[in-house]
């Protein structure tokens, strides 16, 4: 098997195919600190792509409550257990080797591909097929809404949660080295050279479910009515600008543009022939992932080089975050909790336009306050962020202080 270079692991790794990279890569940043688990993203995807017979159990986008939930149930714990079995106690990072090109250091454990080889498996990657039960009831008992009357509105009288949790938003990662693609014996899965989107060719697919088994994120799903597998398609007509409402310009996907909590920003990253990201600190995604390094890949140790990046939740115990996001979690939280002026402005770009922002600029504003973050004083400024599309046209302008409108006490849910 050829060696390919995985920058998230800071080293080469084995993969079924030789290294080849798209010109642009579909990517996004999700800010976990701001998600309210309203599931608007989930419903936006569902009502666009998976509303038909045989797709009832399919949630290409889902939001789960960690550490309790998962869709399918326990997907990550199960894969972590398999990795530990292949390499007991060996899933470690060497942070001393961190460089700008390998910002998390070097992963010294085994990826899902290397673990399969170590166990002498003929499959490309370790994996498992979730049971039918595990695909049903996403969010069961995670956040149970209660239908309460006004007179009952008070804090719960049952044992209260005195623990920590956070919401994890999940779609297909349109990985650089997709396990689903490597796993398919029919070569029915492909990664598009123009935007890195990973798709299943449903004409070629015969429903062997090898992708379902070997994708560590469990994002391909089998449809019994058509007997083929399906997965998130990154709303590619929007990315191409061929969706009628996009007017020919690349547009963010349904789940991104519907996000009520304003936690998602999606775009395209320019990639060189060697797989390196073209240096572009004025691109908001490049800036957050590579410059500020506040956004991190989900379970980078799996080895697929996922392209959805997460700003980790800063209240969660660190060992959990290290396992989920790798050794970059501490520095990411430190930078996010006391953001630079530039980062503070970029965070305001999230969900201000449906168009893909290729470049941003920050216009300085006046000082509005001061915060104490971990014993240090941080100044707050009312700067303005300006976003431009790929043609350099201004598409959004937003200040840090957004206008606030108070709807008054006659509305029950007003604050």
């Amino acid at each position, binding site marked *: 098997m050829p060696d390919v270079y995985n920058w998230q692991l800071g080293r080469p790794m084995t993969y079924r195919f030789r290294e080849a990279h798209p010109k642009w890569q579909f990517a996004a940043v999700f800010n976990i*600190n*701001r998600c309210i688990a309203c599931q608007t993203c989930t419903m936006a995807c569902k009502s666009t792509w998976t509303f038909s017979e045989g797709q009832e159990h399919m949630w290409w986008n889902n939001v789960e409550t960690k*550490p*309790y*939930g998962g869709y399918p*149930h*326990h997907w990550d*714990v199960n894969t972590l257990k398999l990795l530990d079995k292949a390499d007991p106690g060996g899933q470690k990072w060497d942070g001393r080797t961190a460089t700008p090109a390998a910002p998390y250091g070097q992963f010294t454990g085994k990826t899902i591909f290397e673990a399969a080889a170590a166990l002498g498996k003929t499959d490309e990657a370790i994996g498992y097929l979730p049971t039918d*039960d595990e695909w049903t009831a996403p969010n*069961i*008992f*995670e956040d149970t809404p209660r239908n309460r009357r006004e007179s009952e*509105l*008070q*804090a*719960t009288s049952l*044992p*209260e*949660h*005195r*623990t*920590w949790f956070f919401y994890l938003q999940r779609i297909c990662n349109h990985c650089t080295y997709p396990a689903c693609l490597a796993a398919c014996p029919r070569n029915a899965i492909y990664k598009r050279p123009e935007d890195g989107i990973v798709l299943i060719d449903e004409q070629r697919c015969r429903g062997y479910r090898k992708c379902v088994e070997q994708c560590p994120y469990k994002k391909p799903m089998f449809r019994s009515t058509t007997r083929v597998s399906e997965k998130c398609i990154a709303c590619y007509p929007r990315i191409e600008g061929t969706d009628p409402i996009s007017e020919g310009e690349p547009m963010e996907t349904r789940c991104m543009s519907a996000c009520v909590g304003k936690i998602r920003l999606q775009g395209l990253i320019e990639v060189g022939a060697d797989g390196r990201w073209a240096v572009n600190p004025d691109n908001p995604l490049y800036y957050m992932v590579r410059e500020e390094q506040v956004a991190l890949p989900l379970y980078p140790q799996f080895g697929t080089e996922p392209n959805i990046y997460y700003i980790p*939740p*800063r*209240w969660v*115990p*660190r*060992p959990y975050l290290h396992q989920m996001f790798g050794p970059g979690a501490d520095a990411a939280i430190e930078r996010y*909790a006391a*953001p630079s002026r530039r980062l*503070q402005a970029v*965070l*305001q770009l999230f969900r201000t336009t449906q168009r893909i922002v290729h470049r941003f600029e920050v216009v300085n504003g006046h000082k*509005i*306050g*001061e*915060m*104490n*973050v971990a014993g240090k*004083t941080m100044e*707050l400024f*009312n700067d303005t962020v300006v976003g431009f599309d790929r043609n350099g046209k201004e598409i959004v302008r937003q200040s*840090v*202080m*957004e*206008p*606030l*409108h*108070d*709807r*008054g006490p006659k509305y*029950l*849910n007003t*604050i």
Partner: protein
Amino acid sequence: MAEFHKGAEAEDPFEAMAVFVDGPPGYDGAAAMARAFIEEYAMMGWPRERILRLFENPRYAGTHAVYHQRGEAFIHSLLDDVLCVAPAQEVRHA
């Protein structure tokens, strides 16, 4: 609360449900989450009074649970600590 501290069991199909996942010794999850809420809204320029209402209002179950458990003085102390100079945002009334 000891009776509620039942650990996860791998054979339980809902193994991680209704199980306390402890943080490191001394870790106070509720305070850490409440502080994070305050910081997030402060970063967006919200005034103190408005952030406080997120805790006071029982419709915001998560933040209100901390207010209920720890009391108003606790929330004020967090606000005092985070907001050195609180933004004075103009609020337009409907």
